[in-house]
């Protein structure tokens, strides 16, 4: 029991023998996080922090290699039949759960079913699934209603994705996140303990069997070098930086851009860029208020804003941001310039004229932003200023994040709100594509393009349709992209094997110190 701790520590005082003991074994990796994740259950939780921790212990059938292409992880291989409507996936036979049981198709079917019904992103795939069956001890068969292009990307994306749990854990599981007692996965690390406010600790899984092949992105060999990974909440960013400088932590996440030059030049610190950029989004209300269906007014707002100064203020060094209008970054297969001519005009006069045409008469526009994310707030401050210069009457409302989430679900409470989006491997996963996401963009034009987009399995055709969707986003402005932000983390130079950037979330298999 935890209550004993207090007494134990009192006892420790009696045995004042350990005064010289080192605080941590060398085999413990100490990661300073921004906070604590809501839960580590990957099916229902989409927090990036949760995945950073959890993808060391939960694995899916597929994962991404270094070029963001899906590769098998717990799967051994797959074949498409029936013109892409039937998917047969073979499972690896050497996989054991942390509780010692071998993984079979029953576990996979149970996990996929729960994900499909309750998982955050499961509905995207499962709304198109006719049946899911175990077609052998180590084979499953998925029958689709129609060919579905992004299936493998969805399976490989572990955040809010199909982690494989034992069937016994899935029994009766619902939308409610799993209890830590049920954190049983297949990964190189397994759940150790979660002390509220103190840390989440994972310990090495000695019985781990890795996927075949050399390490490539998240694919290939995974080797746990540490005895334990300890994720310690250090909410104050200054304290995280100090902690790395002083050697109290090995790794710290989410460091402000303005400190980049200093830290990059500091011999006691290594900087690690995050590969996939995150991007800020300012959603507009399609259901209620002055912006509803008034696309011209929305374009006026879009025209008024020059995104670059906001990025300069919010992020800092030019290496860490890109005023890029394409929803996916340069170099990515989904990159397209469609519509981006309107990304960052910053033309107050043109905006005024457009707003006048749109019938805008100076009604207040309610903008919600949270200070929990400083870069949202900094961006909002700069935009508010620019919009005011273009004659808009902006009512900036600042809330804590939980309040903002609550308010944005109520259409009459806001006109624009700020959020951000993590890097995703398939545009279908971008929140604005979801008709139910606050903002509620669901015009007939969008519906038509979206239907075409998911039905196609041809990569070239899908790219073409995506560029049409992006152009539509710049025309109807359900949301404004604020630009790409390359976040970075810092580490102690003693840590080996990190590479100069992460793929999506930092991973600590094949890493040592």
């Amino acid at each position, binding site marked *: 029991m*935890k209550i004993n701790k207090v007494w134990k520590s009192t006892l420790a005082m009696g045995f004042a023998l350990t*005064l010289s003991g080192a605080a941590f074994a060398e085999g413990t990796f100490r990661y300073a996080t921004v906070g604590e994740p*809501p839960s580590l259950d990957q099916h229902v939780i989409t927090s990036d922090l949760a995945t950073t921790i959890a993808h060391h212990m939960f694995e899916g059938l597929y994962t991404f290699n270094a070029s963001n292409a899906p590769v098998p992880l717990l799967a051994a291989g797959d074949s498409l039949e029936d013109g892409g409507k039937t998917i047969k996936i073979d499972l690896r036979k050497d996989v054991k759960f942390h509780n010692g049981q071998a993984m079979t198709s029953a576990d996979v079917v149970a996990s996929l079913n729960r994900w499909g019904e309750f998982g955050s992103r499961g509905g995207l795939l499962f709304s198109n699934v006719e049946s899911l069956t175990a077609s052998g001890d180590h084979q499953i068969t998925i029958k689709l209603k129609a060919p579905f292009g992004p299936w493998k990307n969805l399976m490989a994306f572990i955040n809010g994705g199909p982690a494989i749990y034992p069937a016994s854990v899935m029994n009766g599981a619902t939308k409610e996140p799993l209890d830590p007692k049920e954190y049983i996965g297949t990964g190189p690390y397994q759940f150790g303990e979660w002390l*509220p406010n103190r840390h989440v600790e994972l310990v090495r899984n000695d019985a781990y069997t890795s996927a075949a092949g050399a390490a490539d992105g998240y694919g290939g060999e995974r080797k746990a070098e540490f005895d334990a990974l300890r994720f310690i909440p250090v909410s104050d960013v200054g304290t995280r930086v100090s902690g790395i*400088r002083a050697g*109290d932590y090995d790794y710290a996440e989410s460091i402000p851009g303005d400190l980049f030059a200093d830290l990059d030049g500091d011999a006691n610190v290594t900087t690690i860029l995050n590969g996939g950029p995150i991007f800020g989004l300012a959603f507009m209300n399609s259901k209620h208020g002055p912006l509803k269906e008034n696309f011209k007014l929305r374009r006026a707002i879009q025209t008024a804003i020059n995104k670059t100064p906001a990025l300069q203020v919010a992020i800092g060094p030019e290496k860490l941001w890109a005023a890029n209008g394409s929803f996916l970054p340069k170099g990515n297969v989904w990159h397209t310039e469609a519509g981006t001519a309107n990304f960052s005009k910053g033309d107050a006069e043109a905006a005024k004229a457009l707003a006048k045409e749109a019938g805008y008469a100076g009604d207040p526009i309610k903008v919600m932003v949270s200070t929990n994310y400083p870069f949202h707030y900094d961006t909002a401050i700069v935009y508010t200023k620019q919009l005011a210069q273009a004659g808009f009457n902006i009512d900036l409302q600042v809330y804590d994040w939980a309040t903002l989430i609550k308010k944005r679900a109520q259409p009459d409470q806001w006109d624009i709100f700020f959020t951000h989006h993590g890097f995703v491997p398939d545009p279908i996963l971008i929140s604005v594509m979801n008709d139910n996401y606050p903002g509620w963009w669901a015009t007939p034009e969008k519906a038509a393009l979206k239907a075409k987009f998911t039905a196609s399995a041809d990569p070239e055709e899908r790219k073409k349709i995506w560029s049409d969707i992006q152009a539509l986003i710049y025309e109807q402005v359900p949301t404004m992209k604020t630009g790409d932000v390359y976040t970075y983390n810092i580490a102690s130079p003693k840590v080996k094997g990190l590479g100069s950037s992460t793929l999506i979330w930092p991973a600590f298999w094949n890493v040592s110190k």
Partner: protein
Amino acid sequence: MLAYTLRRLIAFVPTLLAASALVFLFIHLIPGDPASILLGDTATPEEIAALNQQLGFNEPIYVQYFLWLGNVLQGDFGTSVFFRQPVLSVIADGAETSIWLATMTMCWIVVIGIPIGILSATRQGTWIDQVTSGFAMLFASIPTFWLGLYLILIFAVGLGWFPTSGFPSLSDDGGLWNLRYLLLPSLTLAAPNAALIVRLVRASMLDVQREDHVRTARAKGLSPSRVAIRHVFRNALIAVAAAFGFTFAALVSEAVVTETVFSLPGIGRLVVQSILRRDYPVIQGVILIIVVLYMVINLLVDLSYARLDPRVSLK
């Protein structure tokens, strides 16, 4: 005395009920709910409503309150929504840090505050008195987080003498040595409070000095230092004991800012985080316990007043 204690304990009940109902009402009025925090950005309103239903947060607020109250009376503080652990064990975890932090802070206050207070009082009006009183007041004027940030910068990052942040449990590797993690935080927290004690010791010693029995002792020809220690200080202790009680109670809860700066896993930060996460059962539990603690210390202070000072009668 026993009857008095009993009466006071009974009087706790309405205060506690009012306080807990007030907290309950306040935190449920805050917009936002646990389910939307748990499920994050992609959850639909239907999913959030369903999970809140499952967790029991859709009941009318008075129903929730009486359910909670009933359970608390049976010793069940409920389960943390966020940690999926019993509230009491979450609180116990934070209590270790808070209690050690408060204890170390009290040590600093005693070691620094009382001697300086005596010095200041026995040299009343001299430059020593002026300087010490001035410094005490200066320290009471520094925002704690500002002091903490600079202590980290100088002593942890610059000189590397102490860890920057965190506090591993004493039952963890390192044992008692882990208390070094609390050195800078306790100094940060002690600064304004030590100043308070310095002034209190000084003031109460000066008051007592004017009283008859001290004058008599002086007249008897006792040396000034003996008078200072035997008579004046002993009596001044009464006032100081009271201040200690309150300061300790305040330390456990008011350490929020210090705990945030140093990333300590204490009760204060638990409350702040729980408010941000809308983890209702934890907020209610912590505040209830702190209020009880405060009232008990209040009572103990009054009782010790009566013990130390026969002029005080308990009515």
